[in-house]
Each structure stands twice: as structure tokens, then as C-alpha cells.
């Protein structure tokens, strides 16, 4: 089959690879009908997250049709079922899964020894996301093996297009959880840094969850326009001071809730000297992430407020103002998304017409064009916000 394969820094190729095979009785094979490139794939593209190996298949946002089911998954899945695959692989049986903390499932990381050493304790297995999270082949491919498939799936009905449900596997629940863990009150201002796909979903989620005002921060005009379309007030950080403007919009008190939908690769600009400092340290290997957004959020957030971090961080950061964080009594909530905790409810909201996540798709191409689209998406060319691939 064909698949998008990681070969090294900025080197992703559309290769011919062997077809995945069932290994365990709980596995299933899915024929992928749609998949997408995620912002966090770009961190792998840049080799900023350790433990990728040449030959790893990329992709953790995918859906398709079940074509083969292992003996122990048969009660829950059958050939022909239409499923979205969540990016977190879950067993559904361990203590963490029972609590709904699916992204820290204790069973599914097959490189547990390595992950225990690096993280202290292993987290769930993830598709297409380095050997620290199990090294499971991803879904930017024609076929995907889904481990623990009896639990790791979201069934979707026929008659609803792929584009409307595909994002149930990652970015929609990710934006949703980012907003939910802010515990939004009708009096709250929610500020969201980054208007990429997760930021866009977080904006819609905060609007649905009754925020008084939603403020979106970016510098790309097309992304700010899409944020505004979703009901956000926008701040272009190339043109105005984020801190001043946020204070202005909140009567000088700062936003109650802040969401970081940017993560480890904050935009670098001489007008924000800390980003240049981080970039230089990153090149020398003295820091892995550029935490400009964290610094700004901690500074501007209202005391006793909540900081929610769906953005991906990979390793070590520098110059985090712990003094501000501690004295202001802020709450930080973060984590990979507990996808299956939210998807039944979100699927219903899509079916009822409360939201249609397909608004974010700007490019639909074949798998062969995938490598080039990684570049277009990374360089934000052609107003690219979200790429869907059709294997």
C-alpha cells in the first residue's frame, strides 16, 4: 500500500510499504477513506519531538471502513463498520480508562519501558507519534491496523460525509476539551492563542459553551478572518500589543480563561525578543520548546484564573515565570485529549446541526500530494489551514 513515511527532518515521502497485518486478537484493520495532517505532525516534521525513526508511518487523524477484525474485537466491531479512529489508543479497562483519563491509558503503550524512563510513567499509545508513545504506525496510509480496536474507535452512521466527522478523532474534541477544562462561566472572557485548526475548534467550543466573549490571537489574516467568522474578537500580534488589548477588552482585569493552542513552536519575531532567545537555544539543543505563549498567558491571565494547554510541548522549557504563576494562584490544565470521553456527545451535536467541523478544511488532495502539502501547511502558503488527504 502507499503511506506517508517519515525519513528524517523535513523529509516525508509517499512510499510503497507492506500492508499492516492483524497481530493481536483485539486488532482490526481499517481501510482509510479520509485522513488529515495535524499541526502536531509539523513538530515531527521538524524533528522537535524525539524518538522518530526512519520508516515510521505518519498520521493520527483518520477514518474509514473496517475490513478485518481480530477474534476478540468481534463483539464490538464487524466488517463494513464505518469508524473514526481516535488518536489515543485505549484499552477501556484500566483504572485510568475507567476514570475517563483515556490519554493516559496504562495498557496501550507498547514501548512502556522507554516511556517510563522518559516521562516517569508511560502514557497511552498514540498513532503515528514517536516511539515514546508506542511507535504505532499512523493513518496517513491506505490501511491502518488499530490495536485494542474493540475500544479504540468511534462508530459513525452512514449518510454523513467524512468531512463532517473526521475531526472527531482529534482536533474537535481537542478544542472542546481545552474549553471544557476552562469550566467556562457566562461571565468569562476566554482568550485563545493560535488560530490553527485546534484554535478554531476551541473558539467554536467556547462560543457553544456560553463564554461572554472569545478573543483569538494570531497574525495570519486568513486565520484571523476564520476566527472572526466563528464569533471571536481578534488580535493581530503583528499590529497590536496582545497584553494591552486583552486588558482593554476586560476592563483592565485580564481574561479569566486562557487557552494555548500554539504549543512548542511559537512564532519567532524580533518584536518578541524572548522568541529569538528560545530559537537560538533550540538550535543549539539547549532547550527543546519555545514557550512564549505560556509566558504571555501567565502574565496576562486574571488572578485565580485557568490556563488550558491543548498545544503540544515536547520537552524542556526555560524562563517560565513561576513567581507570577504561584502568586496569582493560577490553575494549569493540560494533557493529550481524552478523545472518547467526548465523542458521543460531539457526534450528536454534529448530527443535530449545532456545529459542522468541516468549515476548517482548506485543502483536499491525494496521498501522493501529501509530502508537498506538509510543506505548504508548514509554510502557511496558499492560505492553508487544514489539509485532508484521500488515500
Amino acid at each position, binding site marked *: 500500500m502507499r503511506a506517508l*513515511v517519515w*525519513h528524517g*527532518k*523535513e*523529509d516525508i*515521502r*509517499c*512510499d*510503497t510499504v*507492506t*500492508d*499492516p497485518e492483524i*497481530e493481536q486478537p483485539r*486488532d482490526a484493520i481499517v481501510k482509510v477513506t479520509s485522513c488529515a495532517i495535524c499541526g502536531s505532525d509539523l513538530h515531527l*516534521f521538524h524533528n522537535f519531538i524525539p524518538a522518530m*525513526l*526512519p*520508516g*515510521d*508511518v505518519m498520521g493520527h487523524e483518520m477514518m474509514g471502513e473496517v475490513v478485518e477484525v481480530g477474534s476478540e474485537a468481534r463483539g464490538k466491531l464487524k466488517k463494513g463498520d464505518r469508524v473514526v479512529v481516535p488518536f489515543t489508543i485505549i484499552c477501556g479497562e484500566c483504572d485510568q480508562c475507567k*476514570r*475517563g483519563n483515556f490519554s493516559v491509558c496504562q495498557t496501550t503503550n507498547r514501548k512502556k519501558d522507554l516511556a517510563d524512563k522518559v516521562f516517569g510513567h508511560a502514557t497511552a499509545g498514540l498513532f503515528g507519534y514517536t516511539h515514546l508513545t508506542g*511507535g504505532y*504506525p499512523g493513518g496517513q496510509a491506505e490501511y491502518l*491496523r488499530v490495536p485494542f480496536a474493540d475500544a479504540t474507535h468511534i462508530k459513525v452512521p452512514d449518510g454523513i460525509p467524512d468531512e463532517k466527522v473526521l475531526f472527531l478523532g482529534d482536533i474537535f474534541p481537542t478544542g472542546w476539551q481545552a474549553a*471544557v*477544562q*476552562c*469550566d467556562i*462561566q*457566562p*461571565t468569562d472572557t476566554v482568550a485563545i492563542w493560535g488560530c490553527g485548526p485546534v484554535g478554531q475548534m476551541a473558539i*467554536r467550543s467556547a*462560543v457553544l*459553551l*456560553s463564554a461572554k466573549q472569545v478573543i483569538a490571537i494570531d497574525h495570519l489574516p*486568513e486565520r484571523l478572518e*476564520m476566527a472572526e*467568522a*466563528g*464569533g471571536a474578537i481578534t488580535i493581530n500580534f503583528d499590529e497590536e500589543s496582545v497584553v494591552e488589548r486583552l486588558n482593554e477588552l476586560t476592563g483592565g482585569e485580564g481574561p*479569566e480563561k486562557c487557552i494555548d493552542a500554539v504549543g512548542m513552536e511559537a512564532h*519567532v519575531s524580533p518584536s518578541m525578543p524572548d522568541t529569538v532567545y528560545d*530559537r537560538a537555544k533550540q*538550535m543549539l539543543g539547549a532547550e527543546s520548546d519555545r514557550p512564549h505563549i505560556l509566558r504571555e498567558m501567565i502574565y496576562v491571565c*486574571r488572578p*485565580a484564573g485557568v490556563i488550558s494547554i491543548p498545544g503540544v510541548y515536547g520537552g524542556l522549557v526555560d524562563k517560565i515565570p513561576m513567581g507570577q504563576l504561584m502568586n496569582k494562584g493560577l*490553575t494549569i*490544565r493540560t494533557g493529550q485529549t481524552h478523545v472518547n470521553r467526548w465523542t458521543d456527545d460531539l457526534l450528536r451535536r454534529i448530527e443535530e*446541526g*449545532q*456545529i459542522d*467541523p468541516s*468549515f*476548517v478544511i*482548506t485543502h483536499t488532495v491525494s496521498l*501522493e500530494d501529501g509530502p508537498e502539502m*506538509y*510543506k505548504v501547511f508548514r509554510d*502557511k502558503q496558499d492560505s492553508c489551514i487544514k489539509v485532508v488527504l484521500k488515500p
Partner: protein
Amino acid sequence: MAYYISNIARSKGDPKVLHSGPSSLGAADRLAKALGWYSIGLGIAELVAPERFTRALGMEGKEGLVRAYGVRELGHGIVSLSPDKHLGLWSRVAGDGLDIATLMTAMRHDNPKRNNVGIALAAVLGVTLLDIIGAQGVTARHSRPRGRPRSYRNRTGFPQGVQASRGAAKDFQVPPDMRAAPTLAAVSDRAPQERARSH
């Protein structure tokens, strides 16, 4: 091949590469990579054995300068191999200018190694040409073209419109483990202790 080694980390049912197809790296990116490694190699040589350069060029006594240029080369290399490679290559072009100016000072009539200096100059000029081609190439390949972006004014995501969607999910119950209230909930007349109890 690297795949055979990395395949050790894979299980038997995992896909394995049979043959490679088109890559996200363009010709300019490959040139940038080659020039980046060239910078690293030259930088290390200048740092470790500066006397070899000074002796061959009749510039004895300038070892400190060559070492400093070695550090500079390493900088060019690191940036050229990073995602900001256009900066790395343009910095290389500037560095080439400095190299040429320095070599010109050694083109004196009384320098017995004048011929070597000429060869070095020709080599630097050749590399400069590659650097300019590479720098222009990666800049063109990775920059955002000017002009109007596409319009996403109608991409609300809300089939019923934004206004009707504000608060549409108020049926949603925030799970207890994700609550932050009442720390910043609207202020009521009740004492905070009382609110904490009723929560």
C-alpha cells in the same frame, strides 16, 4: 539502509518500506542541507587545525582569526540545517563576502603562497554562487507569496449562524474533575464558605 536498523523497533504486522516515492524535500532544500553540512565540516577543520589554513595561504600568525571563522561557519551550518534554513544560507552568503575580503588581503605580491590564495579564492567564489542559488531557492520555496489571502469570511462552522449558537451547548455538564468554579464565577451575595459547601 537505515530502515533495516529501525525495523528492529517495529513488530511483524507493522508496515515496512518497500520503495520510496516523492519527498517533501525540494532540490533547494537538499542543496541547503549539503551546504549546511559543508559549513559544519569546514568549521570543525578551521577550529581544530587553523595552522593548516594559515600555512597554505601564507597567513601565518592569523590562527586566531581562522578559529573565529570556524565558529562562524558552525553557526552558518546549524542555522542552515534548521527549519530556518533561508537565514542560514543568506548568512553563508555574507560569510562568503568576509572570506573573499580576507583572502584578498593575502593576494600580496610578496606572498610566496599567492597561487594557493588564488585557488582558494576561486573555490570560495564557486561556493558563493551555490550559496546564492540555494538561498534564493529556499526563500522562494518557503516564503508566503504576497497578495490577498483567500477569504474565509463565511466559514462560521455554525450551520445556524453565530448568534444562534452562542450558548447552544448549555445542556453540557462540565464533569466534576474539570471544574474550576467557583473561584472566578460571578460574585454573589453569599459568603464564599457557603458557596464552597453547596458546590
